[in-house]
Every structure is written in C-alpha cells, then in structure tokens.
C-alpha cells in the first residue's frame, strides 16, 4: 500500500521511510506542504503521515484542504508534531486528521496506528464496492442486464445536453420484436425470454462502443447513439435489423425466424432537442414500420414530420 511522508526534517523523514519500507509500504516523500498537496492528488495514495510544521502549507492546512475536497476517496491522515499539549492535539484532530502522534515517534505505536488506518480504508473500499453493485442493480433490467428505462432516458438527457454544447447530433433507435406476443403465447415465456436475450446479444455486437442500449418496455429496446445524424442512425438500425433477420434465433430446441422493426430519429433537425420528443419521434417511426409490414426501418424526420422508410431486404 502506498503511503505519503510529508516531513521537511531530513532525518525524521529517513527514519520513517526506512521503517515504513521494512513494513512493506510503498513510500512517497514530500518535503513541503505544497509538494505534499501535489502528491495527494494521486487518489491511490490513501495513507498519509503529515508533519504539522512544514514550510509553506502546514500539516493542518493540508488536512482541512483534503476534507473540503468533494468526491474524494478517503485519505487516512496521521498528524505528527512536537506539540504535545492537549489543545494542540485537539486543534490537530479538529483540522481533519484521523490520528495524532507526538515526535519523536515510537515506531511500534506508529505501526499499530497505521493498521487502524488500513482497516478504515479497507472498510471504505468495501462500502464503495457494495454501493457500486447496488447502483448497478438499480440501473439495470434484471432479465436482460440492459440499462433500465429510467437509466437509458437519463443517459439520453445527458447526451442531449452534451451534444447541444458540442453542436453534435444524438440519434435514437426504438426497436421491437415482430410478433413477439405470438412467440410468447405459442412457445411460452421462458422460450420468449431466451429469444429476447439472443436478439439482444446480436444487437449488442452491432452497435458502437459509445452507444447505450436500454430496455424501454416489454420487448421495446431503446438505443442512444451519440454523434449520429439521421442517416447514420438509419444505417446502424439497418445493420441491427439485418443481423436479426439474416438467420433464425435459437431458443431451446427451436430455431425461430424472428425479425425486428426499427424507428429512428436524431436531434440534428430538432430545436430545442428534448429526450421526450426524440423518444416520441422514434416511437412514431416504429409504429409506422409496423404498419408498413414489419421487418423494416423507418426514419422520422423531426423538422418536417415526415417518414422515410427502408424496406425489408
């Protein structure tokens, strides 16, 4: 584990360094407050031993600065000082230090106190891991592991804001499986689910890395495509449609001749763009594709409210 020693006294710094290396730490050294602050920008540095008195920024100032920083992984700080009066210890800990040791340091004690620091850091890491897992669980659809409806719509909103700033278009594709209800009714829901997963797996291989796929409803899939004008969206939608239609979908022992229909829209002809309008447009285009016999891609032109169609190949 990495540890910072911020100490301007060369001898104390060398003694600390030697002991810490003996205990298996990877030591980073700073000789001034500013240098220490610079080192602490490295978020893999989670343990720090700061001398109170240093040229420039002192140890307590660094503590305060670290604790003011938002979205920062926890750094466990031991403040070192020759000051051993009660009020000094209180002031040191109040500045944000986790622990306080008076100099000269007793190294057996330091080693034990560092163990406490490691326990706190391990605990934080575990909590963050669980938090990430929970966030992921809450953002994904449990069957398909695609982004759920809330998450994909939120992403679209973010992309629209970004694309507006960068003056680039955002495309969306709304697609669903043709006669999916019949598949479910005829083969049962387990097989229907399996077919859905197979189709998603094919689609996922055909989109770009920057695109996000979400499950919008039952068998409705919403794909958000950053930096895509309407022509590019249509090209990608066609690629998805043909990849599904090209050969049957294997579900259980069956090989199902499944097809999909796609509705496309892009923000490039929409002012001001909104997630709701884009989704509505792609949905309208999807409905149009269904009405035109399915297994086709329809593009919704937001500016003139017309539809352009690519017929099934």
């Amino acid at each position: 584990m990495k540890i910072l020693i911020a100490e301007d006294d060369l001898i104390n710094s060398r003694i600390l360094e030697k002991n810490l290396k003996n205990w298996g730490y990877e030591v980073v050294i700073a000789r001034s407050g500013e240098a220490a602050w610079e080192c602490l920008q490295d978020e893999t540095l989670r343990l720090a031993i700061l001398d109170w008195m240093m040229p420039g920024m002192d140890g307590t100032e660094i503590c305060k600065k670290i604790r003011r920083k938002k979205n920062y992984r926890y750094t466990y700080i031991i403040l070192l000082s020759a000051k051993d009066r009660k009020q000094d210890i209180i002031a040191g800990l109040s500045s944000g230090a986790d622990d306080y040791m008076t100099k000269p340091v007793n190294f057996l004690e330091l080693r034990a106190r560092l163990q406490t620091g490691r326990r706190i850091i391990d605990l934080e890491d575990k909590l963050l891991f669980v938090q990430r897992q929970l966030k992921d669980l809450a953002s994904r659809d449990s069957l398909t592991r695609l982004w759920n409806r809330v998450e994909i719509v939120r992403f679209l909103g973010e992309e629209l804001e970004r694309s507006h700033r960068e003056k680039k278009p955002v495309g969306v594709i709304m697609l669903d499986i043709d006669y999916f209800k019949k598949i479910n009714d005829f083969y049962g829901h387990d097989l229907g689910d399996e077919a859905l997963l197979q189709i998603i797996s094919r689609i996922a291989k055909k989109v770009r890395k920057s695109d996000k796929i979400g499950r919008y409803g039952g068998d409705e899939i919403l794909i958000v495509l950053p930096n895509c004008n309407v022509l590019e969206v249509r090209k990608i939608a066609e690629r998805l449609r043909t990849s599904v239609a090209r050969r049957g979908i294997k579900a259980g022992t069956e090989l199902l001749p499944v097809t999909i229909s796609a509705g496309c829209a892009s923000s490039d002809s929409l002012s001001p763009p909104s997630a709701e309008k884009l989704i509505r447009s792609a949905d309208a285009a999807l409905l149009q594709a269904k009405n035109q016999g399915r297994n086709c891609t329809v593009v919704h032109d937001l500016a003139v409210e017309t539809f352009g169609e690519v017929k099934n190949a």
Partner: protein
Amino acid sequence: MPNHAHPDWNLTINYQEVLERVGGDASFLEELLKMYIDDYNEKSRLIKDAIHRQDFVAVQKLGHSLKGSSANLSLASLQKASLALELAGRDENLVQAQKALACLETEFAKLKDYLQQNPPRPEED
C-alpha cells in the same frame, strides 16, 4: 572507553533507544548521524548569523528544527539546548539565545568526540 549504557553518555546519545527506532541497523544510524552533523554545521552558521542580526523568528525556527532532529536521534542534551534556543527566540531574549548557542556548541563537540570513540554498533543482547 565510555560504556554505551552509562547514564551520562545516554544524555549525549541514547544508543539503545535510537537503535530501536531504526530497527537495530547500526550502519543506517551512522548515515543518519553524518546527516545530523552536516545539518548541524549548516544550522549553527545560520543561528550565529540570526543572533547577530537579532532575527528572533529565525532563531526560534532553527531551534525548533534542531530540537526535532536531536530528539529523533535520542540526543537529549542537544535537544534540551535546542529547546532553550527556541524559547529564547520566542521570548526575543538575546542573552538567553547566546547562552543556548554556547551550550549547543559544547554539547555538539561532546557528541562528536563520543561518536569518534564509540561509533554505532549493533545492539547487544
């Protein structure tokens, strides 16, 4: 030859304590003591200069700094003299500062003599 464990010499350098601090590594301690001697020579020059200029802030800081490194190497007499210098600086007391400097110089000479005759050696059981 003075005994390492003799209480008077322990005030000059407490080998047992400092060796414990450096994990019993006598050659590392020797390196640290060389560092201390170089640092002391430089600081002693700065202290004389600061006293001459009656720059008490500098006197206090230099005293504080020497106190820290002396404590780290278990040099109790030098630590005590450094503290006296730090306090003289804080109180802006020129006479006390000069006294403390004289005391530092005596203790430093004592340390050098002692180290010459008794270089660090690994801890005995």
